[in-house]
């Protein structure tokens, strides 16, 4: 994963708008949700300078998913957009993944 480039990530997020997506989302120490399927209505990333960044999805016409603390991203070989937030010692705090296909269970 590399440090988030806000413009790049915004462009990648937009590719998921207007279609069904599978989501993996976690606040690592507290909760994870894997493979909920939503119709992405809008996708946002916000934050300036060196981050960390905030991301949000609107889905199914009435849903929100919002997350903060994002620092890194990767467009993986399977075409999935992986966003994550790491602390200064490499520990994951949050993650938000979007894919067109279900993530491995």
């Amino acid at each position, binding site marked *: 994963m590399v440090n988030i480039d806000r413009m790049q990530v915004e462009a990648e997020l937009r590719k998921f708008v207007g279609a069904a997506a599978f989501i993996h989302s976690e606040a690592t120490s507290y909760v994870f949700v894997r493979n909920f399927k939503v119709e992405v209505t809008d996708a946002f990333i916000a934050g300036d300078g060196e981050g960390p960044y905030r991301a949000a999805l609107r889905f199914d016409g009435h849903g929100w998913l919002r997350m903060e603390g994002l620092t890194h991203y990767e467009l*993986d070989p399977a075409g999935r957009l992986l966003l994550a937030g790491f602390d200064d010692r490499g520990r994951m705090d949050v993650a938000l993944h979007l894919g067109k296909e279900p993530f491995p269970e």
Partner: protein
Amino acid sequence: MNDMNQSKARKLLAVFAHPDDETFICGGTLAKYAAEGVEITLVSATRGEMGRRMGNPPYLNRETIAAAREKELQAACDSLGIGRLMFLDIRDKTVEFIDEESLTARIENLIQDIAPDVVLTFHEKLGGHPDHCSIGKATTAAYHRARCKGALYFISFGDRMEHPEPYGYAPEDILKIDVSDHLESKLAAFRAHRCQSEIDEWVWLPDSEALDRFGKVEYFINGDASAPILNSGDLFQPAGSRPVMAGVNH
């Protein structure tokens, strides 16, 4: 060499929850018995794929971590001398939500197949993590159901069992295994679990300094009340010390 089973190799089955449990908690003991020729099977319920640590700096993500941790665990097994590694393919952090009956049955089948002399697992209450407690509970039930002829011990963190009374145990329930001759293997296994150990600077100090951080003893709790400990320095108890029907549910 113990005098039991001289004609065939002694066998140890360890059933834990995550890659690194075997190394961080009782790696010295596993290395010691492997060096003595004990055939060790390690079962890891999960691949630790929901862990927080991903290297420092991070070199993994949530989707790549499972394969990486499997590889690192295999390398750790090679360092410790563990000959056989199996996974139960349960997602990390979900062991307590898996059907307990089928989990117990799977482990019971393994015990029947392997016929181990020693079974190691977590204590179902003192495990310290829900996955640990759940795999410990299932393995303990499987041990009794299988009427395992061997012994059952619970692994224990650090030196807390030097004083077992606050945990509801007496000193005679505790085994202390001297691992001082096997700390190099333990350190190599720590380093094999790179994504988990990289954050701990001491692991990567020069060997002599890193080795100083390890205790010389690893502690185990007797998990089978029907079989008192006769030799508190050895997981493999003297021949003839076991009741004929050891392992019957109680």
